[in-house]
């Protein structure tokens, strides 16, 4: 059997990589995908704990997370389309009308 903390460390690494991509990438869609990566990392942690404690609530929560991620992806991509239409670019640094 795989010790639980292996899963947890993997989850941490995936989350961290998602954070790195979140900060570094300039394409809006890529940033969005990094958010999905972070959510997946969290899901992994939940399922790991669910197996460790022998309770099934963790997996129920994972289902909810997936549902919310789906809804969020739908609306978020709609917004990204609008941004592309308005700013003619998918570079997040071009979305800076609030800059002084």
């Amino acid at each position: 059997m795989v010790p639980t903390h292996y899963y947890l460390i993997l989850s941490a690494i995936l989350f961290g990589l998602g954070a790195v991509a979140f900060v570094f990438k300039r394409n809006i869609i890529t940033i969005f995908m990094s958010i999905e990566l972070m959510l997946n990392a969290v899901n992994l942690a939940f399922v790991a704990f669910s197996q460790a404690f022998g309770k099934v609530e963790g997996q129920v929560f994972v289902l909810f997370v997936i549902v919310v991620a789906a809804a969020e992806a739908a609306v978020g991509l709609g917004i990204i389309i609008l941004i592309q239409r308005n700013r003619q670019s998918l570079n997040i640094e071009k979305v800076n009308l609030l800059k002084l």
Partner: protein
Amino acid sequence: MSTPILDILWIIPLLPLLGAATNGLFGKKWPNKIVNTVALSATGLSFAAALEAVREFFEQGQKLVHKEFFDWIVAGSFRAGFDLQMDQLTVIMVLVVTGVGFLIHIYSTGYMSHEGGYYRFFSYLNLFMFFMLILVLAANYVLLFVGWEGVGLASYLLIGFYFLKKSASDAGKKAFIVNRIGDFGFMLGMFLLFKTFGTLDFTELFAKAAPWSHESWGVFGTFTVACLLLFTGACGKSAQLPLYVWLPDAMEGPTPVSALIHAATMVTAGVYVVARSHILFTHSETALIVVGTVGCATAFFAATIGLVQTDIKKVLAYSTVSQLGYMFLGCGVGAFSAGIFHLMTHAFFKALLFLAAGSVIHAMGGEQNMLHMGGLSKKIKVTYWTMLIATLAIAGFPPLAGFFSKDAILGEAFQREGGWHSLYVVGLLTALLTSFYMFRLIFLTFHGKQRYDEHHVHVHESPWSMLGPLVILALLSIIGGWLAAPSFWGGEDHFTAFLAPVFGAGHAEGEAALSEAAAHSLELTLAIVAVAAAALGWATAFWLYLRQPGKPAEIAKSLKPIYNTLYNKYYVDEAYGAAIVKPLLAISTNVLWKVVDVAMIDGTVNGIATGATATGHVTRRTQSGNTRSYAVWVVVGALTILIIVFWPAIRALAGGAQ
């Protein structure tokens, strides 16, 4: 028995207050007649109420009446209420204030009839009556102080009545500021009394103070310090050395104001306070000596200045300062009832002198310089005869009022053992000077050659609204002294007996026990000496101004330095200006304004604003509008929360790693 007016004692001050408010708020559009009616009825009814209150006072056996009307200050165990009281001393004061006040109101209707701001004048005058009545009717020091401050305010308003004239408004400010210095001392005295005795009500305070031991000369105990502080206030209000400088400048106000406030009533408030606090003063020998000496010195000092003044009102102003000195001299030797007696007679003849001077000024079309008058006695007869009566009274010729009161004070001063004879001598000398300069005034104004141009000045007698009060006051000046005829005339000293419940037997302390015959002969001797001094003054003035009119100018020229010093009032105002006013202004401008206000306070406030702006500039950087930097802040936030939540584990980690 029923005492309807005594039960509503507050009606006496309230009526003038209503008159002041009515005239002040509505009088601007009213014709003079209506303003007159309001003001005169307010004062007249107040006088009638005062008479009725006095009658009831006598009817109920002259017992002290102490009425508490409402609680004003209640703090812990201290209570200062709106309490009014009436005793024998109050009877004298309230009758003088309302009576003489009423006469002066009548006079003003004639004198001020052509002036602008008529309604304002009467409003202020009634306001003054209100405050003065509060002062004399008050039953505790706090309420008295309210009246004290209020008359100061009314005096400021009335002195600066012609406020468009710079000298008048300056004089008003000077009066108020100099009074303030005295008031500060008065307040400190009140605080000390409160701290020592826990109450400021007269009856309670004096009852508590009476059994305390006396403080001899040089001991600065509670009584001495408190009395000296109260006396400072009295010096300010009653124009004694060194706070007298405002009174001559106060002549900028209209003449009825000078008569009412600066002769008959307000300036006597200081004497009233000293007399009212006589129990406190008699406990302290130092205070009494100071009071007597300052009073005597002021009397002499002011008389010397009055010798050479040429403005008729200024002569009378210095004369007032001098006579107030007499009153304090009387109080200082312990003869409080003699001091109050002189207060009463002085009110009569000094008010008369001022009103008559106003009549002269009115007749001369505004001229106030005596050197431009002369030979008026035939032209304005009533004014001349009333003023002459007043001059005889102030000089101290029997049987007019001034003789009895001045004689009482000088007699008491003589009878004290020890060094008081010096005070008697100076007082006698001052009486001589008083007689001299008053008769100088009469001779310069009414006798001798006509020194004005008849084509420019049409001398005419004043209307009866002005002359009526003159006649009444002249009458009072004649008969007013007969209340306290000395014993050798066969009369009883009714006045002192009347005030005995307030002051005690009224004789000076430490008086040697003289037999009755010796006492009579001493009184007779002193009286003759006093009259002789007055006659000498009259004779000198007669010789210098009527027989040898050129002589005064020669003497002035030969004694030029002395003459100049006296004429310029010993340069006291200039000395105050250089020693006190100038440094104060310098400190105010350079230190308090430039350093404290501009640099420190403004600097701090503006500095805080600038600091806020600077902080804003710095923190603005986080809101850059760039999404990527926001992303970094999100990561920073997550890291921070992580560290905060897992801090013990992190420490364990670090500890384990080491």
